[in-house]
């Protein structure tokens, strides 16, 4: 073998150096560079808290926020808008120009509803369009526009329920524990992920079927755990389940609504049936149907009809302000201010009975509102800056029938309005602790 000459050695060393440098440079270019800074799509969004139930004589100011592509000078959008109003729920709309105010805390754009419309015995209906003058982009709110306007009714002769100051610590124990599982991934366990720094996530929702079967969405292990007639079974599901909401349909299928706004329908054996994106950007709650409370429209939107998914346009057209109740009626609900809840049960467009609930302790979200006997069950949260508990109210034609408190603490995060379900006149609660997940049952008095 010939001994390498100096030129060969130098050439080889230079080659290695050149190769390494070239490789590093190319690697850097391919990974670091240039992920283009996109100009981005034109952004347009709007916010509005609807005036769903108003008191006679109450001044009604409709407020809107307009959200657009951020301006380079850091100022808010240069916007405008129009509200289309009509008395009652039929007939032509009339256009009113929104005023632009100096404050945006409650929405920069506003309209004081004219007295002749605000005082209408049949209430009024409305929608708005807002425009960003810089880009010409427009947005309608609700997203269905004239096809599915927002509805506002006067709260006439409501039954008044004064809750006073909430007494924390006097919670009711459940009447029965109907499902429980420790943390883990075995067939009889429910999954838990997370850390002390990030918080924990476990079963994000549940449902109770008419025959008493309890279904818990085991998000971490990708399955539904089913407690039926004393036996535990499970059905495997595919797809994103973290913080998803869940509903068991009467035909045995399951609906799962993920946090990215996609509703997936599964057959009873867990095989996927269809998936559909929601019409609006945000959701609050999934109920059987499937129907989803969506934002910013703040309306219930059907996501399927006769077992087939509805297009996003179809969801918008089918949106309604009132929630459909199991007794065939509908419910308008309005959480007003810090401690007031207004409710009106409707048959068609007519109010059957109404309640006005006030509390000296601030009220949070309404977790559940369903028909029960000849009245309603409402579960909402009372809170201070340090404490919180759920308050269960059974409301009847003479006012408050039953009231009790339920502990709210939970070890894991769930879908936002998935802590309670009502089935066969009984209230069920999903709760998690350091040791596992449970579904408890509370028996209720029945309003006559």
């Amino acid at each position, binding site marked *: 073998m010939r001994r390498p000459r100096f030129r*060969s050695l130098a*050439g*080889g060393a*230079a*080659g*290695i150096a050149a*190769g*390494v440098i*070239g*490789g*590093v440079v190319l690697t*850097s270019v391919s*990974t*670091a560079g*240039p*992920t*283009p*800074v*996109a100009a*981005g*799509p034109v*952004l347009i969004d709007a916010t509005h*808290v609807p005036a*769903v139930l108003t008191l006679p004589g109450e001044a009604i100011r409709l407020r809107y926020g*307009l*959200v*657009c*592509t*951020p*301006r380079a000078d*850091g*100022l*808010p959008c240069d916007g405008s808008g129009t509200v289309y109003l009509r008395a009652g729920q039929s007939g032509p709309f009339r256009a009113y120009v929104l005023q632009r105010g100096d404050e*945006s*805390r409650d929405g920069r754009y506003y309209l004081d509803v004219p007295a002749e419309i605000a005082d209408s015995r049949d209430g009024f209906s409305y929608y708005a369009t807002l425009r960003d003058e810089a880009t010409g982009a427009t947005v309608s709110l609700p997203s269905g526009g004239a096809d599915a306007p927002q509805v506002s009714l006067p709260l006439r002769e409501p039954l008044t329920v004064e809750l006073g100051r909430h007494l924390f610590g006097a919670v009711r124990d459940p009447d029965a524990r109907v499902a429980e599982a420790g943390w883990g991934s075995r067939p009889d366990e429910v999954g838990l992920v997370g*850390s002390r*720094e*990030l*918080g924990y996530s476990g079963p994000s929702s549940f449902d109770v079927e008419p025959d008493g079967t309890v279904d818990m969405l085991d998000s971490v292990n990708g399955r539904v755990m089913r407690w039926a007639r004393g036996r535990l079974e499970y059905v495997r599901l595919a797809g*994103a389940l973290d*913080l998803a909401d869940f509903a068991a349909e009467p035909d045995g299928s399951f609906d799962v609504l993920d946090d990215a706004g996609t509703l997936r329908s599964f057959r009873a054996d867990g095989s996927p049936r269809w998936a559909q994106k929601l019409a609006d*950007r*945000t*959701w*609050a*709650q999934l109920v059987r149907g499937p129907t989803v409370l969506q*934002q*910013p429209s*703040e309306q219930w939107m059907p996501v399927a009809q006769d077992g087939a998914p509805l297009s996003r346009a179809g969801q918008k057209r089918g949106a309604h302000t009132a929630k459909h109740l199991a007794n065939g009626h509908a419910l308008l609900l309005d*959480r007003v201010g*810090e401690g007031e809840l207004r409710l009106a049960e409707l048959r068609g467009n007519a109010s059957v009975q109404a309640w006005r609930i006030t509390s000296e302790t601030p009220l*949070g*979200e309404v977790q559940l509102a369903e028909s029960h006997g000849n009245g309603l069950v409402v579960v909402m*949260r009372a*809170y*201070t800056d340090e*404490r*919180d508990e759920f308050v269960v109210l059974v409301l009847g034609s003479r006012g408050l029938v039953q009231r009790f408190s339920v502990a*709210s603490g939970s070890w894991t995060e769930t879908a936002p*309005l998935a802590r309670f379900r009502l089935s066969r006149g009984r209230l069920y609660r999903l709760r998690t602790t350091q040791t596992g997940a449970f579904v408890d049952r509370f028996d209720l008095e029945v309003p006559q």
Partner: protein
Amino acid sequence: MRAFLAMAVAGFALSGVTGAQAYHRFWANCTADSPTFMTTMTRDAAQDYANAARYEGYQWGGGCWNYDDVDSYPNDPPQETGTHGEGGDCSGLTFKTWRESTDTWRDGRYYWRALRNVHGPYDAAAFRDGNGAPNHVVAKATAGVMDAFASGTHIGMIFVRSLYGGDQIVEAKCESCGTNIFYRTYRSDSAYGGVGRWGWTG
């Protein structure tokens, strides 16, 4: 020349074997530009800013994103700043949206471009406690648009109150769920406190 070429090929191959490539390099596109001092800061302009960060991802310890509506590096391992992916984390998004200074004693308004990589000096717990000159604790019942709710592990800003008593919250939530507007019940959850930014001008 033959030796040079042969060794160049070998060297090129070796460069791919070793650690020449960092985990992600989205941060290589980010800037270190100074913020723009501003005299105004409205809540709806803050909504614009936070809303534009939607879909841009989540990065633990991060604060840099573009506006292409795509998380360039989704589903990184959680709690690792070294992944250098796109997006802010919850406190980074709040810091930039609230136009705060990296100096905790300054309460002026500093506009940070989306691609400026800055997280700020506060974590969620510091915001919850109202630490820093620009921040303060507010009663949860009175918290309004672009105030925030913070716990020991998370912070999200109120995009708008919702009809059923919860809130639409704009937040950098997690690696798998990214940055978006979600319906949340933080207002009534005793794990969360209310926190606000001094100095809104409208």
